[in-house]
């Protein structure tokens, strides 16, 4: 089985800076991690590899320093890593991002594509389903469990209250929830391999069958009109001398005023 896991390198902290001209995020200088949902997706792929045998490729689109996230994935046990990096990719919304990744995936062999449900910086949950649409393969989102069965997969697909147990044939795309598992740590031999034995293959726009107007900021249907930070919060009203009955009444009234209940 050939599995491709799409991962995203995301900032680790709450420090956010914005490009005043494009309104997009400046990622340089902020410590980065593999997005948690993506890392659980990778772990799920590695579990399938451990149980059934598989070739696991990690794919990311990002700046050259996203190499670090791919090396970590290799050290965890991925077999191959591909970095899509090009100035032409920059400023992409979810549509252009998913198209770029799909164009790279078109050139690869896969039975299963795994992405995280959503990234902690954007929280959109759109790139996975949009990749699947570009590739014309089914997708199952919000997966909490993946089991292999003959030539298909059994997926536990979560909803707000309950789940669907789903059987799907491959090729397909699954978006993973971080609650699915606890990703393994890199081990020393893995780290050694990741830097000495394995390579990160770099692809640019020239390697993809794509026009530069279709991708990046230019190819994005949505544009950021403006970004702003919310003003600092100030303390609300504090009640010190109410008995429990009075306090309860007062809370209910406030919740009604705010249309919360």
């Amino acid at each position, binding site marked *: 089985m050939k599995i491709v896991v799409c991962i995203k390198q995301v900032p680790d902290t*709450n420090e*956010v800076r*914005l490009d005043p001209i494009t*309104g997009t*995020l400046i990622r340089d200088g902020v410590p980065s991690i593999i997005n948690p949902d993506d890392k659980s997706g990778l772990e799920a792929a590695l579990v399938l590899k451990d149980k059934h045998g598989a070739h696991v490729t990690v794919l990311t689109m990002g700046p050259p320093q996203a190499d670090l996230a791919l090396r970590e994935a290799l050290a965890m046990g991925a077999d191959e890593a591909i970095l899509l990096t090009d100035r032409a990719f920059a400023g992409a*919304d*979810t*549509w252009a991002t*998913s198209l770029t990744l799909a164009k790279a995936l078109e050139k690869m062999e896969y039975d299963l594509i795994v992405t995280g449900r959503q990234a*902690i910086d954007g*929280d959109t*949950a*759109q790139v996975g*389903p*949009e990749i*699947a*649409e570009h590739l014309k393969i*089914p*997708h199952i*989102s*919000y997966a909490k469990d993946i089991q292999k069965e003959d030539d298909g997969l*059994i997926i536990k697909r*979560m*909803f*707000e*209250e*309950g789940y*669907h*147990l*789903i*059987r799907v044939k491959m090729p*397909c795309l699954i978006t993973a*929830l971080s*609650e699915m598992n606890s990703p393994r740590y890199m081990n020393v031999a893995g780290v050694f391999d990741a830097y000495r034995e394995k390579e990160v293959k770099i692809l640019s726009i020239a390697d993809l069958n794509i026009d530069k107007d279709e991708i990046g900021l230019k190819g994005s*249907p*949505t*544009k*950021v*009109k403006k*970004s702003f930070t*919310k003003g600092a*919060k100030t*303390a*609300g*009203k*504090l*009640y010190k001398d*109410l008995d*429990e*009955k009075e*306090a*309860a009444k*007062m*809370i*209910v009234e*406030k*919740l009604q005023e705010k*249309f*919360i*209940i």
Partner: protein
Amino acid sequence: MKKEDYSGVFVFIEQKDQKIQNVSVELLGKAQELAKDLGQEVTAVLVGHDVEHVERLGHYGADNILYANQKDLDVYMTEPYTKVLTEVINNKKPEIFLFGATAIGRDLAPRLAGRVFTGLTADCTSLEISAETKDFLMTRPAFGGNIMATIICPDHRPQMATVRPGVMKKSEIDTTKDIKIESIDVQINQEDMTYEILEVVNEKTEKMDIQEAHVLISGGRGVGNPENFGKLDDLAHELGGIVSSSRAAVDVGWMPKEVQVGQTGKTVRPNLYIACGISGAIQHLAGMEESDFIVAINKDETAPIFETADLGVVGDLNKIIPALIEELKVAKEVKNQ
């Protein structure tokens, strides 16, 4: 694509077990405002089978109802629903299409946006029409709520957005309104069933995630013992929410790690966050300060949580919570009369 050909504010109506979901009714409220600003109509798009009280969509603000009523659309599946909505977009050419930011809406909307080649803005908390340009302004939080971004979709139609449940307000019900229901007939074939649902399990206990909850009752060390968390559960039940906790309550083993709020736990932004016996360490505040409305109950009036709370009560949570549950029950009875 000619932008001028597109008109109308469409709302995807989510149904589960034949029941129209609240979030869709909320969206109809917002859609009316947007349609008014544009001088256009609101259309509700319902996909399902024998859904109850379809007329309510009109009562809550839809001028038109499009209804795909078919047995094979009974339970949500990505491809059949995408197929129906693609036909709706191609035939009716809506200017705006709204979805709930739910486990269904966040699955369906991106698949659809990918197919019809348009932009989609996720998890919006505010929607408006620009008075000057008539652009649809979609505002959403990013970076765990640290920044807000206003997104536009200038050249593609429809302009699509998913909206967080509980953010928009239902409009007043108007039962005198004329209801027009137009049925949509879309052939669903075997090849549209791109996966097979083996089992549908409904359970309130297996909660997806504290990040998805609209109401969180959060407990800290001040709750005192694991048994007292039961009271928080009761309150959560009364408010339709779930229980989360601070790191302190996780570290002592009262609560599992997956419900921990804070920098080392999860960032949440529910509509209502009730902090019970939580002092409000910085790392906790980082995970919940973007909640829409924060109530804090704590014995210690110097607790930093009160700096962040919209409403603070100094007192014993083990007395206040049971009283609050009683008061909520009374309020509910009054409302239902």
